[in-house]
């Protein structure tokens, strides 16, 4: 990997440690976890014992305090070997919301066990009628004295059936003047009466990752479980995604890199017309373009992560990185499969699994279209982004 211009010695060491771990451990689980749609608990435990799980979470909350970029580098290396298994680094997904907006008590209670990999967190935004349009959330949280009572259905929730903590976006003020107003975030614990989850099976890809529908039937949570400010849920969710989309960009860089390596190896060894595939000009161009796109995507992802580590993620740079990296990953994985020919299609090769796994990257954490929209808003000054700082051309 070339783009390490900005990496510290420590970050390089993290990347290498993650690479070694994934290279040696993932092959033991990849095929079976995918086929059986089995969450790799054993692998999670191993990764957690080595400190990979809470890399980005501050030390005072049980994490490794290494910053977002270090975490992202581990994500990239894990996804390079297998995307579904790479999702073990998303068992902290949602804890970022508590870290950004939660009270001190909430941070101390919920974050450390998640950072240590002992508990699993999930984030519940999406509903059957509210995906990209999360302001369409109908799940309600009604204030009853000292409690809120939550009712509604969430779907496509990563870790939904295995989570210990559920970070939930719900409507607290049904009559608010705008749909994006009157939303709030809560944390609900597994086992709360009325909370149920059903694992969704037969996904196209990342089948090692758990995805579930989550039901809230009169789930009572104390007021102390409100995360952040009542009515600010939408804004909090946007800030949350500005951060978490960055590691999604690294998921994309990782899987693209993995697919490229498989393609290169295959092209050097497979012969047709008495030559190696790597000797055909067409294949050579494919490899050259694939590698260039990956490097460009990696640099954008690095830029977004460095920006976040400097203080605050930039929504435009994050959207750019996530949009581009996810796009590149589709192209690269598809071209890699093309180079593998029928052997790639028949399903027993890692590239077949990558072809299924990669697809989710343009859907979750903001669809491709939503990233483009966020980019455009950034350019036009409708979002607080550096991309809005455009000079006027002298020949206008």
């Amino acid at each position, binding site marked *: 990997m070339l783009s390490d211009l900005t990496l510290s010695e420590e970050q*390089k*060491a993290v990347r290498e*440690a993650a690479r*070694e771990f994934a290279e040696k451990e993932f092959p033991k689980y990849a095929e079976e976890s995918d086929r059986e749609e089995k969450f790799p608990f054993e692998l999670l435990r191993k990764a957690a014992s*080595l400190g990979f799980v809470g*890399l980005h979470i501050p030390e005072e909350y049980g994490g*490794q305090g290494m910053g977002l970029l270090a975490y992202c580098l581990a994500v990239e290396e894990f996804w390079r070997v297998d995307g579904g298994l790479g999702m073990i680094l998303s068992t902290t997904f949602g804890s970022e919301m508590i870290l950004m907006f939660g009270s001190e008590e909430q941070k101390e209670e919920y974050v450390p066990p998640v950072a240590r990999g002992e508990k699993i967190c999930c984030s519940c935004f999406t509903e059957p009628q509210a995906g990209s349009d999360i302001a369409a959330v109908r799940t309600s949280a009604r204030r009853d004295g000292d409690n809120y009572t939550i009712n509604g259905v969430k779907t496509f929730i990563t870790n939904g059936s295995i989570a210990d903590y559920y970070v939930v976006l719900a409507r607290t003020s049904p009559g608010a003047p705008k749909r994006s107003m009157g939303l709030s975030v809560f944390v609900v614990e597994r086992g709360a009466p009325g909370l149920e989850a059903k694992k969704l099976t037969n996904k196209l890809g990342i089948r090692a990752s758990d995805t579930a529908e989550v039901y809230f039937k009169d789930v009572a949570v104390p007021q102390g479980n409100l995360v952040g400010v009542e009515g600010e849920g939408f804004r909090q969710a946007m800030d949350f995604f500005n951060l978490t989309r960055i590691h999604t960009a690294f998921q994309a860089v990782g899987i693209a890199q993995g697919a490229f390596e498989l393609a290169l190896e295959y092209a050097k060894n497979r012969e047709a017309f008495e030559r190696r595939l790597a000797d055909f000009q067409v294949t050579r161009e494919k490899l050259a373009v694939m590698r260039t796109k990956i490097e460009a995507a990696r640099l954008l992802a690095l830029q977004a992560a460095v920006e976040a580590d400097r203080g605050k993620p930039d929504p435009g740079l994050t959207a750019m990185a996530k949009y581009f990296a996810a796009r590149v990953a589709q192209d690269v994985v598809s071209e890699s499969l093309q180079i593998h020919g029928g052997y790639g299609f028949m399903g027993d090769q890692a590239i077949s699994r990558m072809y299924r796994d990669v697809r989710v990257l343009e859907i979750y954490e903001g669809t491709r279209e939503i990233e483009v929209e966020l980019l455009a808003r950034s350019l036009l000054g409708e979002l607080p982004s550096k991309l809005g700082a455009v000079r006027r051309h002298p020949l206008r």
Partner: protein
Amino acid sequence: MRIFVLVKHSPSPESLLRVSADGKSLDPTCLTYDINEWDRYAVEEAVRLKEKHGGEVVAVSVGTNCDATLRKCLAMGVDRAIKVPAEPGFDASMAAEAVVDVLKCEAFDIVLSGFMSQDANNALVGALAAAKLDIPFATAVTELSVEGGEARAVRELEGGYREEVALPLPCLVTVQSGINEPRYVSIMGIKAAKAKELKDHPVKLGDATVSTERIYAPPTRRAEIISGAPLEVAEKLIELIRSKGVLR
């Protein structure tokens, strides 16, 4: 116990190999480097000895570019690291001389190294260093224990045989792969490594004992398919074997 372990930051045998323009060296740009595979086992064995007997493990590496590998050792549980900023290349005697220069300034009970390095596969540095220090050594060790002032080592011999030897301390052993299962580098280890000492030990090395005349890719050998009637094929085959000097 004072344990030293010799490690090399060395090119992976899976790297792309390109001969440099001078025809005498490998072009380093295409090489991927890592801790030498055998040294990983040596480091693990050294750390295990310390965990059992207490004491200190010190890693020593010769090379101008070996910081990452030394930091990896520190992250795996080595206590401090010494870098000898010299480039002996494939000159095993010079590399051994550099290591010995360090060891002469330190007190040690046992020195571990990998059986060989993954680039040149010479398996020389350990043995040469032991000879220069005039201490007993054992190579290709697959089991090791230290008790009552001596090291007991099981060595791997040709043909699946084993040999058990006892060496009075201080001694040197070169470790065969598979002696243990090296631990993964943990994030906690990486953080702990930050506070550990990594110091330079400059040396003045003597004259080279090896000079490289030429490095080249071996000529590609082609397979030949012998066709024809069985009798014809057999005759051609015998002729071929004879021409290679196998049959007289």
